C-alpha cells in the first residue's frame, strides 16, 4: 500500500508559530513526518513511502521506497520556494500514483498550514472556475483523485484568521469535488477573547498546548489510527490447538463490493472472516499466477512495546511458558503430542551441530533457552519454513466460498515473509484448477485414474519460464531486456534472438500483435541511434534484419522462429572495413 507524503513548501510555512518562536510551521511539519515514519517503522516498514514537496510546482523528492531513512534525510533538505498551489500538487499526485492502479488503498498525507494562495492559482480561484465547468476535461484528474484517501495534517492556530479561513475552504473543496478527505487539526484553545467568525489581525498569545510538537504527534497518532491499522485474524491449521495463532494482515483487508445478479439490486458488501483456515497445500507451479483482489503480509501478532524498547526484548517479555505435556493415553491428541515430544527431544540432542542461516529474517534458529521455545511455538515460522522448502502454497478459506493462498514471498531486499493473496469470492475462480471445493488427496484416486488438473501445463524445458505481463512494468522490463542484448551484439546475438522469439511467442499467444509492430519500430530506432554512435556494422545489420522479420506475416506463426542474419553478410562488412584505410595510407 503506497503512501505519498506531500509537504507544503510555501513561504508561509516559514512563519514562526505565535507564542512559540522556536517552532515554525515547517519545523513542526518535519517533526510530524518523522513521527509518521516512526509509526510506520514500528509497524514493520510495510508501507511504500514517497515524498513530494510543493509550492507553485510539485517536486518528487523521493520515489516510492521502504527505505525510510531516505525520506528522513530528504525532509530536512526541503526549502520553501514561494506560494502553495494545492491543485497543481494534486494533479502531480495523480500522475505519481498512477502506476499503483486502483487495487491498492492509496494514501496521501499532506502537511500544510492551509494557506489558500492568491489570485487564480488559489483554491478559491479553483472553486470559482470549477463551479461552472465541472465536466471539462481539464478537471478529469479529479475523478481519479476521488479514489485516494486524502489526509490533511492542518498546522495552525484557531485564533489565526489565515488558518481558520483556509480550513473552511479546504473543507469546502473536499465537499464540492466529492473527494475522500479528512482534515486533522488541533482543538482550539479556550479563549474568551476569541470571537468566532471575526477576523483577528492580532492572534492571541497562544496557549502552549494548542500547537506544538506534542499536539502534532497527536495528529499523527489519530491519522495512523484512522488509516494505518492492521487487520487482526486467527490463522488455523488443522484441529490441533497449538497449530492456531493470531496474526496481523497488512495492509488491512478491505470490504469487497460484490455485484448482485439481480438487476437493480444493491451490491452486497462482504468482509473476510475473523478466522482464516488452512484447507490444504498445492504446488506453486500448479497455482501459477491467478488474478487476486489484494495481497497482504502475514505477520505474527506481537504486543507493541513502548518506544525505546527493542522489539526483541518485547518478544522475550511476551513469551509465555509452553504448557507441560502430559502424555495421557486417553487424550484424543495423544499421538500428536507424543510426536511433538519426540521432536523436541531430537532437537535438544543435536543443538550443538545446528547452523544459523543468514538468508532469512525468520529462519528457525535452534538455540537453547526461552527464545528457542518462543520461535518454535510460532505458527508463522513453521508454516513459512515448510512452504518455502517445499515450494508450495497453502489454500486458505477467508470466508464463505472465498479463498486465498498463503505462500513464502521474497522481495527485492532478500527478506522472506508470508504473503496472503485473496482471490475473488467464488469457488471456480481459477480456471486451470477447477472447482476449489472439489480438490482432494492423491491417495483418494481410484485405481487407474490419473492425477491431473483440467488444464495440464507441459514443461518441456526448465529454462522456459512462463511470461507474465500482469503489470505494465513486467512488459517494459522484457522489452528493455531485448534492447540491452541488442546493444551488446555481436557478442550477445544468440541471447538477443532468444529473448526476441520469447516475447514474440508470448505476444502471439495473447493476440497482442501490436506489440510486434512496436518492437520492430523500437529496433529500427535503436539501429539508427547505434549507427550514429559508430557501432559495428554487424550490430546494425542484425537489428535491421530482426525488424524486417518481425513485420513478416509468415512469422505470425507460433512455430516459426526468427533466426540471426547469416555470416556471409558479416564477412562482406568486414572486407569493406578493411578496404577503407588503404586510400589513407596511400596519401
Amino acid at each position, binding site marked *: 500500500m503506497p503512501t505519498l507524503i506531500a509537504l507544503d513548501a*510555501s513561504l508561509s510555512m*516559514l*512563519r514562526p508559530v505565535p507564542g512559540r518562536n522556536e517552532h515554525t510551521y515547517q519545523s513542526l511539519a518535519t517533526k510530524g513526518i518523522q513521527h509518521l515514519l516512526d509509526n510506520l517503522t514500528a509497524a514493520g516498514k510495510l508501507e511504500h513511502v514517497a515524498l513530494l514537496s510543493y509550492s507553485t510546482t510539485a517536486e518528487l523528492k523521493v520515489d516510492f521506497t521502504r527505505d525510510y531513512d531516505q525520506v528522513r534525510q530528504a525532509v530536512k533538505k526541503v526549502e520553501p520556494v514561494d506560494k502553495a498551489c494545492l491543485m497543481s500538487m494534486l494533479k502531480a499526485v495523480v500522475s505519481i500514483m498512477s502506476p499503483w492502479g486502483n487495487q491498492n488503498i492509496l494514501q496521501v498525507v499532506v502537511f500544510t498550514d492551509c494557506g489558500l494562495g492568491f489570485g487564480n492559482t488559489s483554491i478559491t480561484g479553483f472553486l470559482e472556475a470549477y463551479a461552472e465547468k465541472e465536466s471539462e476535461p481539464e478537471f478529469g484528474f479529479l475523478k481519479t483523485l476521488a479514489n485516494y484517501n486524502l489526509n490533511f495534517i492542518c498546522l495552525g492556530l484557531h485564533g489565526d484568521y489565515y488558518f481558520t479561513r483556509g480550513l473552511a475552504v479546504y473543507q469546502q473543496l473536499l465537499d464540492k469535488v466529492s473527494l475522500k478527505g479528512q482534515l486533522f487539526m488541533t482543538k482550539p484553545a479556550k479563549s474568551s*477573547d476569541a470571537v468566532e467568525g471575526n477576523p483577528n*489581525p*492580532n492572534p492571541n498569545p497562544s496557549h502552549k498546548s494548542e500547537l506544538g510538537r506534542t499536539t502534532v504527534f497527536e495528529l499523527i497518532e489519530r491519522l495512523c489510527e484512522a488509516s494505518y491499522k492492521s487487520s487482526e485474524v486467527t490463522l488455523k491449521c488443522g484441529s490441533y490447538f497449538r497449530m492456531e495463532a493470531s496474526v496481523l494482515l497488512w495492509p488491512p483487508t478491505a470490504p469487497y463490493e460484490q455485484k448482485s445478479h439481480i438487476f437493480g439490486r444493491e451490491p452486497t458488501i462482504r468482509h473476510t472472516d475473523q478466522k482464516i483456515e488452512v484447507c490444504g497445500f498445492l504446488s506453486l507451479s500448479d497455482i501459477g499466477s491467478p488474478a487476486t483482489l489484494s495481497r497482504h503480509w502475514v505477520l505474527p501478532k506481537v504486543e507493541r512495546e513502548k518506544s525505546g524498547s527493542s522489539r526483541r526484548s518485547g518478544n522475550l517479555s511476551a513469551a509465555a511458558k509452553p504448557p507441560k505435556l502430559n502424555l495421557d493415553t486417553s487424550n484424543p491428541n495423544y499421538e500428536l503430542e507424543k510426536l511433538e515430544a519426540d521432536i523436541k527431544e531430537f532437537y535438544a540432542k543435536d543443538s550443538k551441530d545446528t547452523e544459523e542461516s543468514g538468508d532469512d529474517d525468520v529462519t528457525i534458529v535452534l538455540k537453547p533457552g526461552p527464545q528457542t521455545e518462543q520461535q518454535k511455538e510460532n505458527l508463522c515460522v513453521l508454516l513459512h519454513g515448510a512452504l518455502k522448502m517445499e515450494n508450495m502454497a497453502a489454500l486458505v478459506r477467508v470466508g464463505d466460498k472465498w479463498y486465498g493462498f498463503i505462500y513464502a514471498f521474497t522481495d527485492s531486499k532478500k527478506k522472506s515473509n508470508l504473503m496472503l493473496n485473496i482471490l475473488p469470492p467464488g469457488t471456480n475462480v481459477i480456471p486451470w484448477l477447477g472447482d476449489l471445493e472439489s480438490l482432494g488427496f492423491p491417495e483418494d484416486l481410484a485405481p487407474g485414474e490419473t492425477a491431473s488438473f483440467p488444464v495440464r501445463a507441459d514443461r518441456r524445458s526448465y529454462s522456459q519460464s512462463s511470461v507474465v505481463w500482469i503489470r505494465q512494468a513486467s512488459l517494459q522490463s522484457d522489452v528493455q531486456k531485448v534492447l540491452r542484448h541488442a546493444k551488446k551484439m555481436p557478442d550477445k546475438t544468440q541471447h538477443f534472438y532468444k529473448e526476441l522469439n520469447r516475447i514474440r511467442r508470448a505476444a502471439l499467444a495473447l493476440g497482442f500483435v501490436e506489440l510486434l509492430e512496436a518492437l520492430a519500430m523500437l529496433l529500427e530506432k535503436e539501429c539508427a541511434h547505434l549507427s550514429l554512435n559508430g557501432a559495428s556494422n554487424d550490430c546494425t545489420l542484425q537489428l535491421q534484419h530482426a525488424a524486417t522479420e518481425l513485420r513478416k506475416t509468415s512469422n505470425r506463426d507460433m512455430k516459426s522462429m526468427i533466426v540471426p542474419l547469416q555470416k556471409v553478410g558479416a564477412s562482406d562488412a568486414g572486407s569493406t572495413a578493411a578496404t577503407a584505410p588503404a586510400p589513407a595510407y596511400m596519401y
Partner: protein
Amino acid sequence: MPSQEENELYMVKEAQRLRKSDPCAAMAWIITAKTLYPNAFNLQYEAYLLERDAQNYEEAAKCFSAIATNFQNQHTELWQEINSLTNALRNENETTPEHEFYVKMYKHLTPEVQHNIFMHTINHSADNLERIYIYILMFNKFPKSAITQAPRLLEMLAEGMKTEPDLYQRILVEEVLPMIQNKPPELSPNLACRLYTSSLEFYLRQIMDESDTADAWKNIFKVLMICGQMMGWEPFLPFSKHVNQNVYWEKLVDILSGSPAGSSQVLFYATTLFIYSLHGYIRNCKLRIEDADVTHVLVEGFMEWSPEGDGSEVPSMEPPKFSLTTAISPELSKAFLHAAQCWQLLNTDQFQRDFSQLMLALPLAPWISRFLFDLAIYFGHRDEANKLMADMTTQSSLVQSLQILSLNLMQGSMTLQGFQCILKILSELPTTQGQLLENMSLKGHRHMVFLPLTRSALVQYCVGAIISRLSRKVFEPNVPDRLLGDILVLQQLNLLNDVLLTQQIFNLIKQRKSFNLRTLSTYIINIDLLEELSHIWNSQQEDNFELTSSPNSSGTPTATTVAGGSQSRRIGTRGADKGARDEFRAITRQQIARCNENVITLLANFINQEHLMLAQHIFGISQPVETIVIK
C-alpha cells in the same frame, strides 16, 4: 348664684388637679360635669385627654368623635390633636407609643369622622405640599374618594411642578398615578397632557441615569395608557421587551388612519414610540468590547469601484443600506430606522408645532442632536450635517474627526481636512483592540456602517478611506512605483475584499519588471503578499527583473534610473548574481519572521510616517508639502 361658666371651670380645675394623683377621682368629676353641662367643649376635651393619657384608645375614640362632630371649626387644641393624628397616620411604620396610640384610636373612629378629619385638614392647610400628602393619605384609606377628589389633587400637582418639578413629579409618578390607574378620572386635555409630559420627563431622567430601563419603559407605557383612558383615546399596546418595534409602528399607523388631523392621541403615541426607538439607538451605540465601553458611530461605507463601471455611476435616489459589520449592527440599524420613521411622521405639518414644544420640555437635547446629525448624513444632507456638527459640543475630538472623514467620503472626494482627520484619528486611537469588520465595501450602492471605536475598526476605516481614493489611480497609465508599493502595504488589511486591485498591482509589477524594495523590507509582513512577490521574482528569472532599494524613488522605471542612479542598488535576476538572490531571500525571510506582528499598529505607523507621501498620492501635488499643519 355663681354663673354656669364658673361652675364648669371649677369642675375642670378639680379634674385637672387630680389627673396626675388620682385619675379615678378626676374621671368622677368629669362624669359629673358632663351630666350637668353636656355642651361644654372644655369638659369634653378634658375627658378626651384623660382617656388619651390612660391609653384607652377606644374610649378616647368615642370622646374624639363627639368633639369632632359637635365642635367643628373651633379651638386650637383640636387642630393640634388632629395634626398629631394625621402625622401618625402618614408614618405608620414608626413605633413610638404615641404613634401607636393614634393609629389604634383612628381605627375606632367612625368612617364619617375619619373622612371629615381629612377634609378639614385639607381645607385648613396653607401648605400645598401638606395638602397633597393628606389627599394621598385619604385616597389610601378611602379609595372611592379618589373618583371625586382626584382632579383637584392632580391640579395641585400640576401647580406644584411649576416651582419644584422633581419633587412633584416623583409624587405624581410613584404615589398618585398608581392609585388612580384603575379608574382614571376625566380631566381636561391640557391637564392630562401636562401630567403625561411630567411623567415622561421623570422617567427619562431615570433612563438617562442608566438605571434599569425596562421598568421605566413599562411605566411610561402604563402612564400613556392611563392618560389615554382619561382622554378617551384608543388604547395602545402594553410594553413588552420582546415585542418587535414593527408591531408598535403598525398599531400607530392603524390609530393614525382613524384619527382626525393633529390628534393628540397620535402625537403622544408617536412621541413615546420615537423616544423609545431613540433610546434603543443611543443605548446600543455603546457596547462592551474587551471589558471597555465602546461607542459606535454612524459613518459612510465604502463603495467598490471597478474600471468597467467608470462613467456609469448614477447616484441612487434610494436611501442607503446598513452593512452588517458587527453583531450589534442589526439592532442599531433597526432602532435608527424606527426613530427616523417616527421623526418623519411627527414633523409633518399636523404635528410639527406641538411636537417641537413637547421636545423642548423634555431633557432629550443630547440625544436629539446626535440623532439629527446621523439622520442628516443618512439622507446625504451634507450641509445640514455640517451645521449640526457645530451644535454637538459633547462629542469627543475622535468622534468629530471620524464624522468629518465620513462626510468627506459621502461627497466622494477627500479634502485636506479629511486627510488631516485621518492623522488626528490615528493619534487618538483608543486602547481597546477590537476586531476587523466585514462588509465595509459594497458594490454600486451607498451604505452606512456603525463603526465601533476600537483600534482595529478605526485603522481599518482610515486605511479604507485612503485606498478608496487611490485605487482608481492604479488603473490609469504611468502609475508611480511608489504608489503601487504604498497601496500594497495598505492592502494588507483588505486583501480578501479587493482581490482585483491587488491583482492589478501585481500585473503592473510583472509588466514593468521592477519593484521598489523599500516598503517591502519595512512594512509588508502579510504572507500572501510575500509569497506572491517571491513567485514573481522566481518566475522572472529569465528576464531582467529589477528590484531597487532607493528611498527617494517614486517615478517610472526611467525616473528610477535617473533619480536613484547614485543612491540605489539594483538587484537584477539576469545571469548568476547569487549575492542579489540571497539578499532578496534574506529580506523575505526577515519579513516572514514578522508575520505575527499587529497589522493594525503597523499600518497606523505607516500612515503616520508616510503621511506626506500619501498626501502627495491623494492630492496630486507634484512636490512634497512640507507645511502641512495638523490642527
